[in-house]
């Protein structure tokens, strides 16, 4: 379909702007004024609406269908949350408004902090980080500040990360100025304790761990892992990407974690928005509270205020107090569940185990245990016997009307298919997905071309990712735009993680 720029005709427009009468035209020094106007599209409003509506028909969301993208927790995004976030008292509230005229916002944020402290089993919360990755980085900054304050900053230079970790963990370690130490997974899918013990010493600042892990497995030795780190004076960081498995069932603070980030766009229903926004609050144990970002939302008698007077704080990690609209939605979501939040996690785990039970005889299960809220299958056998890869299975699922699972992640499982159904799906949806997966396994030997050529009914077929990376055409160039269709193509999709 056309780009919006290709719908443009000089002289067309949508917006009419207010122009107060009789005001002189502003004078801009010539050397600072615009020399050449930006080539924004010139289109009437209806054309804009049709353009973006056509784009939506070429996109798939949770509202469209089942979206079991592992580690992303693609659950229903309640529409009531959209209604409340649009209340003028929230939407049009300026972040520099006086605190006494923003009391409702501060009360809401304090309320959400209290909820998250209760759910994580920790003492203090900062809502400021913009997303999970920034929560991770903020948590590592807290570790740096904490150890520097104790005079151990120069000694503790390393962070341990499991080989099953999200790519964000090692990336955050580097950005925080730490060195990475990788630890292996044992045959049951837990952290390999012997490997861990052999690597941990007093140069460690701490551990980053997702529990349940990206394999969807709860680490059975979590108490021992916590003991190992606390004995050497290290800190434990909990990557909350998988918190949807354990709300009301087991709390990170009770597991021994000192710092936790929470993905509000996963567990607490902030819509993923095609890639964002998210929210990545962090919860910490009392001794880390002084280092949290400023400002903190604190009670002040009957009211609340923003506290900037925190001399040990790491500072600010983004503007203002965080993505407030995300807080409104998550707060509304938690109000809906209340003390029954445990049912959310129970059903998420039940749904995952049900799908697992239906699929594990047909696809390989590398770690044969009950799972938590997600599980990882391998298409290794299909690849060996029929040349069918995880990518082929993923593409064929689109023909059946489903979004594929996360594939090629975690990295330790070959041909990985990481499936997370979430609690909001009905048994009928799970059954139809299971039947599609089983049918695809039947098709692999019988009609492999059906899988290799999938998807069959999308606006585009498989795309040439190699050409995209090599040519790096990352913006429209108008009259100078290259004609990529005229260049040779070698459709190949990299076997790289797609999801997470």
């Amino acid at each position, binding site marked *: 379909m056309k780009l919006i*720029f290709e719908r443009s005709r000089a002289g067309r*427009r*949508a917006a009419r702007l207010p122009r107060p009468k009789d005001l002189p035209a*502003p004078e*801009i020094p010539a050397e600072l004024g615009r020399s050449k106007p*930006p080539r*924004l599209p010139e*289109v009437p409003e209806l054309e*804009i609406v049709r353009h973006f509506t056509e784009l*939506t028909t*070429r*996109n*798939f*969301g949770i509202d469209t269908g089942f979206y079991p993208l592992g580690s992303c927790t*693609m659950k229903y995004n309640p529409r*009531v949350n959209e209604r409340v976030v649009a209340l*003028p*008292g*929230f939407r049009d509230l*300026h972040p520099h*408004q*006086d605190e006494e*005229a*923003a009391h409702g916002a501060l009360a809401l944020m304090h309320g959400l902090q209290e909820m998250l402290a209760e759910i994580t089993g920790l003492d203090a919360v900062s809502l400021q980080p*913009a*997303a999970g990755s920034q929560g991770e*980085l903020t948590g590592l900054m807290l570790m740096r500040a904490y150890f520097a304050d104790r005079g151990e900053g120069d000694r503790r230079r390393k962070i341990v990360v499991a080989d099953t970790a*999200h790519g964000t963990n*090692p*990336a955050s370690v580097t*950005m925080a100025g730490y060195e990475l130490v990788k630890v292996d997974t044992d045959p049951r899918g837990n952290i390999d304790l012997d490997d861990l013990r052999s690597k941990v010493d007093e140069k460690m600042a701490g551990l980053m761990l997702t529990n349940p892990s990206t394999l969807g497995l*709860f680490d059975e030795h979590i108490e021992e892992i916590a003991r190992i780190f606390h004995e050497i004076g290290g800190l434990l960081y909990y990557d909350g990407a998988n918190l949807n498995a354990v709300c*009301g069932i*087991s709390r990170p603070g009770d597991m021994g974690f000192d710092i936790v980030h929470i993905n509000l766009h996963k567990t607490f229903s902030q819509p993923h*928005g*095609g*890639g*964002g926004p998210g929210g990545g609050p962090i919860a910490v144990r009392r001794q880390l509270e002084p280092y949290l970002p400023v400002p903190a939302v604190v009670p002040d008698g009957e009211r609340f205020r923003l506290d900037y007077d925190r001399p040990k704080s790491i*500072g600010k*990690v*983004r*503007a*203002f107090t965080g993505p407030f609209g995300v807080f409104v939605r998550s707060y509304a979501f938690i*109000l*809906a569940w209340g*003390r029954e939040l445990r049912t959310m996690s129970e*059903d998420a785990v039940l749904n995952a*185990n049900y799908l697992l039970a239906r699929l594990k005889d047909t696809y390989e299960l590398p770690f044969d245990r*009950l799972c938590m809220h997600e599980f990882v299958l391998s298409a290794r056998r299909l690849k060996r016997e029929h040349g069918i890869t995880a990518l082929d299975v993923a593409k064929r699922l689109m023909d059946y009307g489903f979004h594929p699972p996360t594939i090629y992640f975690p990295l330790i499982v070959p041909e990985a298919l990481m499936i997370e159904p979430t609690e909001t799906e009905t048994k009928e949806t799970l059954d139809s997905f299971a039947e599609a997966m089983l049918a695809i396994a039947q098709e692999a030997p019988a009609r492999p071309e059906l899988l290799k050529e999938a998807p069959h009914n999308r*606006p*585009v077929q498989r795309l040439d*990712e190699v*050409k995209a*990376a090599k040519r*790096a055409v*990352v913006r429209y160039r108008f009259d100078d735009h290259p004609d*990529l269709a005229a*260049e040779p193509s070698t459709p190949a999709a990299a076997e*790289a993680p*797609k999801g997470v």
Partner: protein
Amino acid sequence: MTYVSLTDADREQMLETIGVSSVDELFRDIPAGVRFDRALDLGDPLSEQEIVKRLEELAAQNTPAGEEISFLGAGVYDHYVPAIVDAILQRGEFLTAYTPYQPELSQGVLQALFEYQTVICELTGMDVSNASGYDGTTVAADACYIAKHVTGQAKVVLAETLNPQVRQVVKTYAPGFGLEVVDVPHRDGVTDPDELRAAAEGAACVIFQQPNFFGCLEPAPDLAAAANDAGALAVAHVDPISLGVLEAPGAYGCALAIGEGQGAGNPVSFGGPHYGFIAAREEFTRRMPGRIVGETTDVAGERGYVLTLQTREQHIRREKATSNITTNQTLLALGGLITLCWLGPQGLRELGETCMAVAEHAKERIGLPLAFPEQTTFKEFAIRVGRPAQEVIREARKRGIHPGYPLGRDFEGMDDVLLVALTERRTIDDIAGLAEVLAG
């Protein structure tokens, strides 16, 4: 409100298929010592109408723009968001999708992001934009990280006229990135190119803001030239709403252009979520942080879009990635794209002119001394109110007007200075009201 999708009968059947007798048994791998043995203290579950009522009560304790006439800006602006933004962003295919990992199911978001990248490049005069950063502060930290790797230098130079929150965020990131941060003080509200040049010797980059935090127009081409002379990357932090009337950073020698996108397409929303943008010259493409959408073709030669240059990113490069960013601000960036399409080149220029014209009118009408009388300003200006600005704000608010941002919060010796922001939403009558309350 209930978000439960299973019945008890479903649960029983499912447990039977799994081969366990109870839901509790599904959690048998969790050691007894770390199980939570009480109900969460989160209150009774609420119905949808109870949730709405509770949230309406909280919203009513806030005073949004609309309930008072507000001249607050200082980085977040009350520009008009067109109705089509809400209509399009609320469509579930955009709202409830995630990062477009599977391009055949995601051409809608991918193409929209390709268009967003193009619009950002057009505004800034650059060759490459990512698919959005968190906000206008974190993209500054990203720019420093790029500059450090490109130049091998650790020093970054920040103009004091840069939004204080941007400076604070860079300073928070600095220890982890191994950066040394140097500030260049302002002279009469703007940055002196010679001073900047001296500070930029041996630096990775220089970041300045146009228009700056005081609303003043910096001698931006001279600042970029000063950075370039010293061998540092020139980074301009720009307001998208200004770029219909002000020169594109790419046209005056900047390596990178960054900024807060909020004013184009996002409500103020108590500070977020908004989107940050980061754009660069072509040579820095492979050092960019975060998602980038690229054009390609499918097996049949059909044009399509994919996430590209992913070997920069955390899910592939892990500890060697150019950034840890994963979830970004796509939906807010799409709000920006739609707004900029709605404005078009003509509308964006008119919007900039209107903001500037009403600001000039407000300066005159108020008649109080300007803090920086020598400078040209865009939509914001600093005035001396002759007594503590906080006091003036308190009194004005009693009369239904929020007169602006107290600069004394961030700058010494400016306790009597108010930063007044004008957008196209403020009328001549609003300005008359402001002048009246400021006159006492």
